[in-house]
């Protein structure tokens, strides 16, 4: 749970699609969800969720997309109902508060700009007008001109070459709809080069590549590993990089490269 929590904290805002997807998230043991629908932009959108948490101790931190709630309960069971704005993801304690916020901020006449996403990529903020069928890979490659998310399997999610880091997690950008990416923080291999991350030089040092097409996907996956585990074992590295294909079979070189980077970062 802690890792789930850590990775969600700071997310801030969520898309409607993500809200719907995660409405039944299990937190601390059991959960039930209910829904209330708000009409927005000619479409009914679920805006509520009820989460029942069970956890030992008296303090429970409940984390769901768009909200972090800390409660104290003597009996270790807490029920929280939140109303989430479908446009900006802000949460409110009542439907009335949500409606007031919606009218004041977004307005009845204001269409929900579903095709516009705000995202931070390698430290830069971008606003992108996206089409419903676009993936994050389309946005990064075609709109932002970043060439590191490669395409080996043609959108099947099989090769890992399109991997980027979203909010700390390695994610297949070819399997992530762009409309789900509002207010996310993205890191790509270009960003690692710009920040002079030790993984770049370590991969070069151990020549952990041949043709190099798949390598950025490996590197960002390794970066996410080191972020959450500064002292990885060889087994950890094998496991973390297990979803990436290298047809040149550069696999043995990745292990010393990642360990070397971990050492430079102060781990291992």
């Amino acid at each position, binding site marked *: 749970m802690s890792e789930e929590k850590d990775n969600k904290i700071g997310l801030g805002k969520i898309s409607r699609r993500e809200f719907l997807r995660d409405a039944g998230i299990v937190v601390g043991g059991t959960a039930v969800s209910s829904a209330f629908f708000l009409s927005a932009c000619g479409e009914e959108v679920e805006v509520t969720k009820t989460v029942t948490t069970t956890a030992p101790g008296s303090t429970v931190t409940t984390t769901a997309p768009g909200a972090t709630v800390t409660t104290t309960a003597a009996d270790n069971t807490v029920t929280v109902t939140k109303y989430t704005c479908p446009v900006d993801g802000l949460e409110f304690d009542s439907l009335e508060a949500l409606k007031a916020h919606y009218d004041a901020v977004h307005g009845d006449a204001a269409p929900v700009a579903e095709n516009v996403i705000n995202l931070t990529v390698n430290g830069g903020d971008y606003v992108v007008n996206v089409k419903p*069928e676009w993936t994050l890979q389309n946005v990064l*490659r*075609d709109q932002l*001109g*970043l*060439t*590191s*998310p*490669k*395409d*080996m*399997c*043609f959108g*099947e999610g*099989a*090769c890992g*070459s399109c991997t980027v880091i979203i909010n700390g997690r390695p994610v297949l950008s070819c399997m992530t709809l762009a409309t789900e990416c509002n207010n996310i923080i993205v890191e*790509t*291999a*270009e960003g*690692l*080069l710009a920040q002079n991350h030790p*993984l*770049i*030089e370590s*991969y*070069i*040092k*151990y*020549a*952990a*590549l*041949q*043709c*190099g*097409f*798949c*390598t*950025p996907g490996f*590197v960002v996956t390794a970066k996410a590993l080191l972020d959450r585990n500064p002292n990885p074992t060889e087994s950890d*590295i*094998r*496991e973390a*990089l*297990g*979803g*990436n*294909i290298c*047809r*040149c*079979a*550069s*696999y*043995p*070189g*990745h292990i010393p490269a990642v360990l070397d980077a971990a050492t430079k970062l102060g781990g291992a």
Partner: protein
Amino acid sequence: MDEYYGGWKDPKKEKWNRQTNDASYPLPEFKYTGKRGLGSEGAPDKAEKVSGTGIFGRDVSYPGMLYAKTLMCPYANAKIRSMDTSKAEALPGVRGILRYDDPEWKDAIGSEQSTWGTDTFGMNSAVSGEVGHAEQRIGVAIAADTKEIVDEALKLVEIDWEERDFVIDWDNASEQFVVFNETTEVYGDVDQGFIDADRVIDVKIKRNNTVWAGTEGCVATAVPYGDHYMDVYAHNQVPHNTGYYLSQWFPQCKTHIRAPYHGSQFGSLNWVGYYPSFPLTACILAKKTGKPVQHLYDQSHFDGGSQADGTFEWKIGMKDDGTITAIECWNTCAPAFGRIGGASGGFWCWENYKIKNYRYHVKNVNVAQGRHSCWKHGGGYVLVGVIPIAAVAEELKMNPIDVMMKNNGTCGHDWAWMQSFMTEYGFDPNRDSLKECLDACNKVIDMKTEWHPAGTKILPNGKYHGLGFTVSNQWTHVLGDKGGSWIGLALRPDGTLCIKALRGDQGTGWQGAWVRVAADEMGMKVEDVDLVGVHDEEYFHAHDEGCSGGTISNVMSIVKAARKLKKWVLEAATFKEDNWVITSHGAGWTNVKSLFPDKTPEELDIKDSMVFEKANPSNKVTLGQVVRTVDTGGHGGEHRRPLFDWGWTRNIDPVLNPDIFQELHGWPCLVRNTQFMEIEIDPETGKIDVIKGVAVTDPGKAFYPEGIEQENLGGFITGFTRAGFEELFYDPTTGVQLNNDLIFYPVSVMNDTPNVVAGYVETGGGYGPYGSVGNGETPSASGQSCITTAVYNAIGKWVDAPCTPDRILKALGKI
């Protein structure tokens, strides 16, 4: 003439371009060549590739660029009776359509008649209206605003198909599908070899269909400039050939070839199946629409099989001491490139051993699998020669190392002859490459003491124990056997050096090799050397890339160019004002304000990018200072251009140069590579566990050590996976591929990686610069035999490849 050859004063030496132990050809100080730990400065492509900032073929993008694809046939063998494209043409966003009956497309591609027979491997099926395997490109190519519109438009094409009979398995094909069945290679007197044998045995192994499964799908981008010029970004290991073919079949425009990186493997649709027709289709559509067109082939990973696949049957004659007296091999397989397929193992054996007598037969069956082609070339070659070693070792209960050493030699000659040859031509006669490679492997896996007869060792855990091996020559040992090259060097006014040549990009080490050698030959810091970019023009041509024969051909040209350029630099530094110089490339110098006017070139040298006086090293200037003294003339004041020169290396092969081959008694190969593998096999599940592996090559002279080791590691693993579990399945009823994507086609991932170590020895036995040979292909090709011999040693049965658990259990009689 001496200058032209860059110091090769003896025409005989120039023939073979051998420099080792040659006092007339002093070696440079190897400050960088062969050195580790140079980081990105020692391998300029690596930072780009690791960070994703390097431009690959599919990264090329232009405003308004259209995307194009060609229809793929849903049938295994079919012909178009008629086709209606009207609905596709009417789809909004469709900008251009080429039909198989359009003269502009059909005539251009249909006229291809290259020596490689690309007619059936490239896109001729597209314009012929006939295919030979499912998902082959056929009938129509469409360019549209987006990839999605292209896909939608292709679905709207209505075709009346004529379905035809097909066959998937080459072993069960009727005569109507046999396209070639002949004896292709004969060395010595094979019949007498079998008469002389103490024993004769037979072996049969089938290698089922594996595919390229490349990394970046095929792509070509054509960018028109006006009506008569076009830039073409090629996804090709031989980009200069793309230019050559386009000049013939697309005369409507002058095409200029660019060479981005291309994520890929060696060969296949990165090679002869690509360079004529694939970019040509992009060019025609770009000409037709007036817009940049990017032609895509997403299914290229699974188009065609491996040239190493087929059914191999051996008849092997041997003496009781392990000497092999004759090998006869029958190879049944798919055609390659539309011409004769097969492993050509006879020539490989001839080069590798002292065995005098070979006979090699090839039977090609026109299976509905697409053309089989080379990728990580040569797995079949190696198999033809390795299996007899393993079989003889088992038959005689000899250690395979002893069998290898017993047959050590080349071109039918024994080790003693090799030593005399090495002495005559200046190689070190005491460097036995095979022995050194075997000794290096044996330090990791003790084959000498741990080997056991096949199927005789059961471990305490109940599993079979097996030791496998493979041996091969470094078949790229012949200088220029993959083609010649000419490469330019430009020393800029800022004192940096640019290596200029159109080149493909493959393998690990070519950039690392190029900059290291150029820096050492020029006396420069390696960080002051870089290479031509993707968008630069192709005045000079490397051969292929860094792999294989490309290494020695290209590095040789760099050495020659560097030696000439260094000469010009020292002359410029000591220029006398009453002289006027025309350089080897025709440029004139004048108004040189020499920095060492009272010195001669012989009194100066270059080190760490500084020109200095030998007798007084503190008297020095930068290379940039020297370049800036040279005024190449022109209006409007001083003109400062790079100092420039170039070198070339010619192609030598048995067809073009029979005299050389005759004089050399064939082409003696002096360098080898070997691999050992230790495995365990669970008799209940058939599962193979690779306990340990070791791969050692002899590159002659290592330029970029980390790159060589990575090639050896990757080669071992890809060899293991190709013969261990990779297989493409077909529906026997429809002929449709069943696992043609990267979800279901079993390529290796990190957790499949065995415990393997890699190394190399340097015997200087290559014909390239400093005694070098190419390194990239052989480890992978060799590895495919390693797992086969290991499984045999474990269970005592020859198992078809891939050696999957079901096949092992079947061999054990358990299913």
